[in-house]
């Protein structure tokens, strides 16, 4: 996996999330302020705009560039958090993306940074209910060699995390202002994160199948 792949995945994520635009928009309208989908799409568009200039740059630089781009163009909670995730990941990059352990380390580093940035943890009805379990699972299966198995497992964890937010009361983010009223609604950030992860996983599965 190289920088070209990263941009490739970004495009796939953008495509998948766009397909669920209205659904995500509605989620943030119900328990937030309705801007989440626009923040996410703006971030993806801006990140993709780096492709031409950076496609041959080293992976860690590309991560950092994307993180900075998101940090300076998105705004809102998701802008701060996704930027923190990706900049965090860039810091742990260890010369290769072929090694799952490396990826797991990077991801964990990013998610840890998010927890600090958001002063939050699992169970607070946020995107972290997807990302933390994914980070844990990745660490758990870091020695797994079959990428399609990894992908299936991660996809499932992300899905469960996303769904788990439905019945939670939020204690972080805008939904926290709703108290009980937030119950019954999936967190928008959890949904967009899960869709992104699912998009990557599906792509990995497809690649394996084509081998």
């Amino acid at each position, binding site marked *: 996996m190289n920088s070209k792949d990263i941009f490739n995945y970004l495009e796939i994520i953008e495509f998948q999330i766009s397909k669920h635009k209205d659904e995500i928009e509605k989620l943030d*309208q119900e328990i937030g302020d309705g801007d989440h989908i626009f923040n996410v799409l703006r971030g993806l568009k801006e990140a993709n705009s780096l492709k031409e200039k950076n496609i041959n740059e080293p992976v860690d630089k590309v991560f950092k560039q994307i993180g900075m781009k998101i*940090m300076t163009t998105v705004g809102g909670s998701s802008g701060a*958090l996704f930027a923190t995730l990706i900049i965090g990941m860039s810091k742990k990059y260890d010369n290769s993306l072929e090694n799952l352990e490396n990826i797991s380390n990077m991801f964990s580093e990013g998610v840890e940074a998010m927890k600090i940035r958001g002063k939050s943890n699992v169970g607070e009805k946020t995107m972290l209910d997807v990302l933390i379990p994914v980070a844990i699972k990745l660490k758990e299966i870091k020695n797994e060699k079959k990428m399609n198995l990894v992908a299936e497992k991660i996809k499932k964890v992300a899905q469960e995390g996303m769904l788990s937010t439905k019945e939670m009361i939020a204690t972080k983010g805008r939904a926290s202002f709703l108290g009980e009223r937030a119950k019954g609604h999936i967190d928008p950030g959890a949904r967009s994160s899960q869709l992104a992860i699912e998009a990557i996983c599906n792509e990995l599965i497809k690649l394996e199948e084509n081998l």
Partner: protein
Amino acid sequence: MKKFINNVENILSESLSGFGKAHADILNVSLSPDFIYRKNKSSKPKVALISGGGSGHEPLHGGFVGTGMLDAACPGQVFSAPTPDQMEAAANKVHNDKGILFIVKNYSGDIMNFEMGADIIDHEHTTVIVNDDVAVEDSTFTTGRRGVAGTMIVEKTVGSLAETGASLEECKNFGDHVNKMTGSMGVAFTSCTVPAAGKPTFELSGDEIEFGVGIHGEPGRKREKIRSANELTKDIIESILEDLKPDNNQEVLLHINGFGGTPLMELYLLFECGQKLLEKNNIKVTRSIVGNFTTSLEMAGGSFTITKLDEKITKHWDTPVHTAALRWKM
């Protein structure tokens, strides 16, 4: 969606540019990164006040940049917190030897982005977090309460103190103090329409209101049937007083804030209701301000803000101010 726009993508930059031209006598507008700052840097060192937040609450915050109030404001996308590079650029432009005070409404996006901005600036700095909205509960486990229309009062009074050459610590403490003395709560009659979305954020039927709404139209305490102005006033003011616990004969500033779509006629009527009720509770309204200051685009509805006044707050409320949206004695 019917709005004055050329292109949804450019709405902010075109609007900011117009704002800069319309108020070119007192401020400048920088685009990419976007921030609004005072035209003339004070010749004496002073704490530089920087605020900001999602756009769509105009005149907050850009309308409060000028002598006696903010040094700079960082507008984000509509209802999305600004990005850290905006805070950095604004800080570099307006810092004036006594440090930077960020004034941030308590929304997690704003908190995080301002923190990230603060992380990358070299100047001494600290932050006042405004959380005046009593509609939602403040518990140690949650994000706490939202920062809403009381922000303008914090910006005015701390802005005045900063003008005297007070230290960063003094400004920070005074900001926290004014925030603690301030409580707000509002009610929405209609939704607003985020330009990028092109349709209303939420739907309220013909006789429904959102009681305790946030300034982005996000839900508050409950959805209920519309009631008379007096009844709404009673429930709102009692909630605020419960929080502020004013003394007998307490002097207060009463601020009626319109969310954008409610005529002034109704806001003054609300003032009448509020003033009367406070009087009955032996609370004296000695300062007042009525108008659209912290809006949610075109949302109909409004909020009450009460600030318990002491000598210092009163003094710094009364001092001259010259901004686009708040101007007196100069």
